[in-house]
């Protein structure tokens, strides 16, 4: 026993020590990561973020330097209250903020840098820089912020903002306080624009003093500057589109059919991109984000899905020709509508019977109901016919994401046999159940950009390029996906009659009031019924005004879709705006000033206020036109004057 006491204790101590080492090094330890090592200072060198130019080389987005005060909480030495007060005065924050911010940074990580006060002004920076070394654990990080050279295109250009923790968790490239593209091209071309930040590892001693490069600087990297990009947007057309959309809500998408390049991408209401730069970014962003009525951050050109309405009829005409179920001369009669069973799809007064040309330019519902039935009923079962029809429609880029380089998008919807099988049961439905598809109502949904793309495909007589926003990347080809044509399932020769029909829409049909002298425009008006839930009741609101067009008729230069929320019938707002956009793009000036004045002078704000008024209100026929206030008109004229001429 006496012999064993020390021996036992020695062995016990050995076991306890190894257990403690295991706890410290294996269980509590981590694989060595230089980024986690507080003995190594990481000095980041942020490269210049790439500039953004419009298609004509006009600079839209540049940079401005910005200085963030960063903190590494573990290294902070407690300051006495006088020092804190002095520091807070320099930073223009309150003492409370000081502790709150420090606490927040500590909770994120005591050993990693967090932004303490972001984006100091140049003057504050100059004053602070002198005194910075007094505050251990704090340092100034230079970054570059965006400097917008324009007030338009907020939805196109997007913005950059601080990364959040979930982004860092997924993409370890980023550190707290780094800026990342949040919307628009800033988001989709983040990697191209941002470049790669450089890093220097510096060995520190315990007095926080640099004592030389870590591992002789072999791990250090130089920053790779971001690349400049040129986007497909025509900034003048974009500005004009945004002007037309003033006091209205909706979207305009203009595409160059020969390339798929997006010329303009308007969403109303819009905002000034400069609002989302600098120290006020989060305040302004919150304001925009919380506006759940006007939804300025909701890109109506890309994200809003609506029944496409009458423009969709052109596709049914094309499919019918392709399937050989009608010829252009086949006529169907219309007696204010189309009867099936004991139900009726209404139509308006026009000549009857209608052939394809008349059917298109008068937008005859009965004609297309007949055509649609023939398409579906060509096959043995409605299911087979429906799937065949659905495939044709999808070949125009409908019913799925476009897979392009825009930061947001919606797939829209194109029904298939399965859709109705789910609704009615397998083989328990007939063509007439789906008859609304004939006129673009019912189960079909599309976004304005899909509609514009559809116009481009018709204008091209059978193919389209995926609509995209990138035109040039410094030294890099643009993705192949954007330069390969996508062919529709319709043969080229079937397009001419439909194009003629769309031309006649302007010539003698529903859009003859919005003609532009000297330009052969092919278009199609549309309206979409829409509903809102008011006090728990589904209430119909004034129709959305829709227009789809391309011009000129041969070798089109522009394809466009315009969509105005509660704008009533197609040519009332959307048609006028489409014509003006086309004229502005092709001619560079406006000859139909009467039409322009109509659009600029009128507002739809009263229409948007109706559902929130708590009073009964009239829609469609009962709506009135309201003009903007004289001050607002003045303002609009000012904006118009500021758009550069060609």
């Amino acid at each position, binding site marked *: 026993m*006496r*012999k064993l*006491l*020390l*021996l036992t*204790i*020695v*062995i016990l*101590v*050995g076991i*306890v*020590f*190894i257990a*403690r*080492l*295991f706890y*410290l*090094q*294996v269980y*509590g*330890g*981590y*694989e*060595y990561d*230089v980024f986690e*090592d507080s*003995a*190594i200072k990481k000095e980041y060198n942020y490269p210049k973020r790439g500039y953004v130019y419009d298609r004509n080389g006009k600079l839209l987005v540049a940079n401005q330097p910005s200085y963030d005060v960063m903190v590494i909480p573990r290294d902070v030495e*407690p300051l006495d209250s006088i020092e804190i007060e002095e520091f807070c005065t320099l930073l223009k924050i309150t003492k409370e903020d000081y502790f709150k911010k420090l606490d927040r940074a500590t909770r994120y990580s005591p050993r990693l840098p967090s932004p303490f006060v972001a984006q100091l002004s140049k003057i504050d920076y100059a004053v602070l820089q002198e005194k910075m070394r007094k505050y251990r654990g704090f340092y100034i990080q230079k970054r570059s912020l965006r400097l917008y050279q324009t007030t338009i295109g907020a939805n196109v250009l997007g913005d950059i903002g601080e990364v959040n923790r979930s982004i860092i968790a997924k993409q370890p490239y980023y550190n707290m306080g780094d800026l990342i593209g949040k919307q628009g091209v800033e988001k989709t071309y983040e990697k191209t624009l941002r470049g790669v930040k450089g890093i220097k590892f510096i*060995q*520190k*001693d*315990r007095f926080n003093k640099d*004592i*030389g490069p*870590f*591992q002789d600087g072999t791990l250090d990297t130089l920053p790779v500057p971001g690349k400049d990009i040129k986007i497909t947007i025509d900034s003048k057309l974009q500005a004009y589109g945004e002007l037309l959309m003033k006091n209205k809500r909706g979207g305009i998408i203009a595409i160059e059919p020969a390339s798929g390049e997006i010329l303009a991408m308007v969403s109303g209401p819009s905002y000034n991109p400069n609002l989302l730069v600098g120290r006020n970014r989060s305040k302004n962003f919150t304001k925009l984000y919380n506006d759940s009525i006007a939804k300025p951050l909701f890109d109506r050109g890309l994200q809003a899905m609506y029944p496409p309405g009458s423009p969709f009829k052109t596709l049914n005409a094309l499919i019918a020709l392709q399937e050989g179920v009608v010829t252009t001369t086949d006529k169907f009669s219309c007696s204010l509508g189309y009867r099936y069973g004991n139900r009726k799809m209404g139509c308006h007064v026009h000549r009857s019977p209608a052939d394809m040309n008349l059917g298109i330019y008068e937008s005859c519902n009965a004609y297309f109901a007949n055509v649609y039935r023939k398409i579906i009923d060509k096959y043995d079962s409605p299911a087979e016919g429906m799937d065949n029809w659905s495939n044709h429609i999808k070949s125009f880029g409908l019913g799925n994401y476009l897979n392009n380089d825009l930061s947001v998008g919606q797939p829209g919807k194109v029904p298939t046999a399965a859709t109705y099988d789910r609704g009615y049961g397998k083989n328990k439905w007939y063509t007439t159940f789906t008859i609304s598809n004939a006129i673009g109502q019912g189960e079909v949904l599309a976004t304005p950009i899909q509609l514009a793309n559809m116009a481009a495909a018709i204008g091209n007589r059978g193919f389209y390029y995926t609509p995209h926003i990138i035109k040039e990347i410094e030294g890099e080809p643009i993705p192949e996906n954007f330069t390969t044509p996508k062919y529709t399932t319709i043969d080229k020769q079937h397009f001419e009659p439909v194009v003629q029909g769309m031309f006649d829409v302007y010539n003698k049909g529903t859009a003859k009031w919005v003609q532009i002298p000297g330009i052969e425009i092919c278009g199609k008006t549309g309206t979409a019924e829409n509903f809102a839930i008011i006090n728990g009741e589904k209430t119909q609101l004034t129709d959305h005004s829709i227009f789809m067009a391309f011009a000129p008729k041969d070798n089109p230069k522009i394809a466009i879709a315009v969509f105005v929320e509660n704008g009533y019938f197609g040519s009332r707002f959307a048609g006028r705006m489409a014509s003006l956009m086309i004229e502005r793009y092709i001619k560079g000036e406006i000859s139909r000033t009467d039409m322009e004045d109509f659009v600029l002078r009128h507002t739809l704000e009263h229409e948007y206020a109706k559902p929130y008024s708590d009073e009964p209100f009239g829609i469609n026929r009962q709506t009135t036109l309201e003009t903007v206030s004289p001050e607002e008109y003045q303002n609009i004229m000012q904006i118009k004057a500021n758009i550069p001429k060609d």
Partner: protein
Amino acid sequence: MLRENQRRFKFDWITIIIFLLLVAFGYVNILSASHVGEITNYFDMGQPYGKQTVFIGLTFILIILILSFEAKFYERFASIIYIVAILSLLGLFIFGKDVNGARSWYGIGSMTIQPSEFAKFATALAVAKYISDLQTNMETLKDQIRVAAIIFTPALLILLQNDAGSTIVYLAFFFVFYREGLQQVYLIVALALIILAVLSLKYGLIVTSVIASIILLVRYFLRKKKRASLIQYILVLIISIGFAYGVKLFYEHGLKPHQQNRISLWLRLEKDPAKLERMKKAEAYNLIQSEQAISSGGTYGKGFLQGTRTTGKFVPEQHTDYIFSTVGEEWGFLGSSFVVILFVALIVRILYLAESQKSQFSRVYGYGVASILFVHFTINTGMVMGLIPTVGIPLPFFSYGGSGLWGFTILLFIFIKLDSNKINEW
């Protein structure tokens, strides 16, 4: 002639190999912990590692010297060596040099020598000599007091020179006394006192009194022999409570503030977070840095000269008392467990050899060697890992410093010499 050769190689090579491994690995870590910039000259006397190169070289001369003496020499001259050691400690009060507030060094030119490092083996020799005397019986109070005097004389002198850490080492001899017949009651009392001290500091006097009363009461009713009366039990209780009170009083008034803080941190006595923070900043900086350095090593370590905390000199005194944190950072769990295993193996080997000695002098000395190494190793590594309050003593064979290295080498090799001579003992 043949017999001569046989004898020369009777040294216990296992012990010697472990010793060599410790010194070599220690040197590697001193290099890491003390180099600034490139290492160009291993003999650079301006750098700690350069000096250590020389110290290690001299160590081998020292070893040859120790081994070349007759084994009987150490037993015969034990008392004289002890007296010389005591004189050298006394001399410090007159000729000593202050370093970091402790008057423990003689300055000879640019060199310094710390006699307390040599007093350990001298004391071990004296203790061995006294106990192995046929007249001595460790069960008698008279001899207990005498051996206590042998160890407390140098301990007290060292304490007076303000080197509390080295003083604690002399408690190691308790293990030797116990092995040689000290009554069990001392062990129980020592254990009881430690528990009482911790209880009173951590939970206060009332809780301690209650616990002590309950234990004694239970003990009283379960006692087998009716020898002890209730009065005696009450007396023990009063002494216990008095001791607890004394500990508290000593902690509050007898200790220096930094010693107080170290104990407070170790027992987690401070509850006020602001005060705790201040205390940690003031007292636990080394400890926190050393623990961080060790953890950052992970399983495999960062590699020789690759420790960022070591290179950045984050751990103060890293090449001396905190050398083990370098092992932790650069060699990871594998390297640091290896060191722990080496030490345990060394001590176990010495204990085994000590038990196999035929002469009591050799056995007691061997026990002394094992106990001293054990206390140093336990306190030093325990402190660096954050298990034991901060006490500044070096890690044998590992820490930078000539006096320490030589002191421990002499301590160990005298035993190796004694051990090699055991076949001649009858």
